[in-house]
C-alpha cells in the first residue's frame, strides 16, 4: 500500500534494528540526505547498508557509520579522500565490508527486484573478488556466479511523484533509485514535488508506483 507521509521521521520510523537498508545515490547526486538524517535520528542500529560508496565527509551515511550503526557495508567504492569515518571503523575492525564491482552491485540489486535467483557474469573473473565463488566457462569466457541483493528497506530520492506513486528522476541523480525501489520490501522515496494522478506522462514513468510504499516531500 502507498502512503504519503508528512515528515521524514515518520517515513523511516518502521525501520528495525538489523535491517538491510539500500540507500540510493552516487556521490551527492540522488542521495536522500533528509531520509538518511532521519534514520540517524531514529536510532535503528546493526544495519547492513547497500550504497555505491561508504559515506563522505561529515554528513549522511558517513555519520551513520561514525555512530556505529552500520554493521556491514555492501559497496563498490568505499575509499575516497573524505571517507574518514569508514576508514576509521574499518581499520578498527568495527565494520564489515563486502566489496562488489559496481556493475555486479547494480545487476545483483536488479536481480533481486526481477526475481532472478543468481547469474553468471564475466566481471571479476580471475580476480580476488571472485575468490571462493562458483565459476564456469560459458562460450569460452570465464564467468562468476553472483547472487541477488535483497533489502528490507530502500531510501531513495526522486524528482516528482504522482498520486499513484509513480516516480521520475533528474539527470544522473536517477542512478540506483529505480533498481533499489524494486529490490526492497519497503521503498521510501523523498521527492521535491508531488503531482496529482495523471500529472506524469505514462510514457515517461521511470519507477512505477508498484515499487513505492512511502512518499515524503522534502522542500
Amino acid at each position, binding site marked *: 500500500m502507498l502512503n504519503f507521509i508528512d515528515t521524514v521521521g515518520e517515513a523511516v520510523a518502521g525501520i528495525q534494528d538489523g535491517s538491510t537498508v539500500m540507500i540510493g545515490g552516487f*556521490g551527492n547526486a540522488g542521495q536522500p540526505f533528509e531520509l538518511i538524517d532521519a534514520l540517524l535520528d531514529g536510532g535503528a542500529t546493526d544495519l547492513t547498508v547497500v550504497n555505491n560508496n561508504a559515506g563522505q565527509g561529515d554528513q549522511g551515511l558517513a555519520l551513520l557509520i561514525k555512530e556505529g550503526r552500520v554493521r556491514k557495508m555492501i559497496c563498490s*567504492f568505499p*575509499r575516497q579522500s573524505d571517507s574518514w569515518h569508514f576508514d576509521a571503523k574499518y581499520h578498527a575492525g568495527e565494520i564489515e565490508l563486502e*566489496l562488489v564491482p*559496481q556493475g555486479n552491485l*547494480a*545487476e545483483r540489486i*536488479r536481480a533481486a527486484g526481477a526475481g532472478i535467483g543468481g547469474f553468471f557474469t564475466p566481471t571479476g573473473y580471475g580476480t580476488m573478488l571472485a575468490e571462493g565463488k562458483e565459476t564456469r566457462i560459458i562460450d569460452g569466457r570465464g564467468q562468476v556466479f553472483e547472487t541477488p541483493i535483497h533489502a528490507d528497506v530502500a531510501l531513495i530520492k526522486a524528482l516528482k511523484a504522482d498520486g499513484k506513486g509513480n516516480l521520475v528522476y533528474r*539527470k544522473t541523480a536517477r542512478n540506483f533509485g529505480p533498481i533499489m525501489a524494486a529490490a526492497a520490501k519497503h521503498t521510501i522515496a523523498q521527492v521535491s514535488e508531488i503531482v496529482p494522478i495523471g500529472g506524469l506522462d505514462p510514457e515517461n514513468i521511470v519507477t512505477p508506483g508498484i515499487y513505492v510504499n512511502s512518499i515524503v516531500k522534502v522542500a
Partner: protein
Amino acid sequence: MSLQSTSLQTRDMPLGRDDLARLVARDIAPGSFVNLGIGQPTLVSNYLTEEQNITLHTENGMLGMGPEAKGDEIDEDLINAGKIPVTELPGASYFHHADSFAIMRGGHLDICVLGAFQVSATGDLANWHTGAPGAIPAVGGAMDLASGAKDVFVMMTLLTRDGASKLVEHCTYPLTGVGCVTRVYTDKAVFLTGPDGVIVRETFGCTLEELQELVPLPLQSAAAVGV
C-alpha cells in the same frame, strides 16, 4: 627479433599527459561510443573533435556527456564517474545504474580508456588495488569496463617513480581483468598487447633498443610484424 627502431620513433621527447591524451583522442575512430573512466583518461575528452562525433558514456547513467561544467553550469544532479560536475550534449540520454552497466557489460562500448598500476604482456590489467596490507580496496566500475568494452586502452607512465616498468610479464598487483587490454599508451611508447605478445607501435624520445632496456619482456616492432 628485428628491432627497427628508427621507423617507430615519432617524437624526440617523451610525451606529457596532455600530448598523450591528444594521441589517444586522435586514435579513436569516428562515431565511437567511449568511456573515459576517472582521473587521467578523462583528459582525452579535451582533444576529441566535433568531426569525430564521439559519444561519451559515464557509468553513473548517461550517454552524451559534455565537457566539465563551469560556473553557472554546475548542477549537483549532473556529474561524471569521478563525481565532477559535467554538462549534457544535445542527443544525450539518462538511464539507471543497471541499464548503464548493461551498456558496459554487454559489449556495446567501442573503447574504454583506463589508468593502470600494471599491464601484463597478455593484456592482464591491474588498476584497482595495491594489495598493500591495511589498504582499503575500492573497485568501482573498473572490472566491468575491463571485461565489457570491445577495446580497453590504458594510459599510464611507463615507469613507476622507482623506475620499474609497469608493463610486465605477469602482474604482481591484484588483477582487474584477465587478457582485456588491447593497447597501452605511455609517455615513452604505444604498445599493442594481446595473446601474441607485445608489439611496439611507436616510441617517443627513445629508440626501440632503449625501450627494450626498460621493459622486462620481449618487444616486437610493429614495422617488423607488419601491424
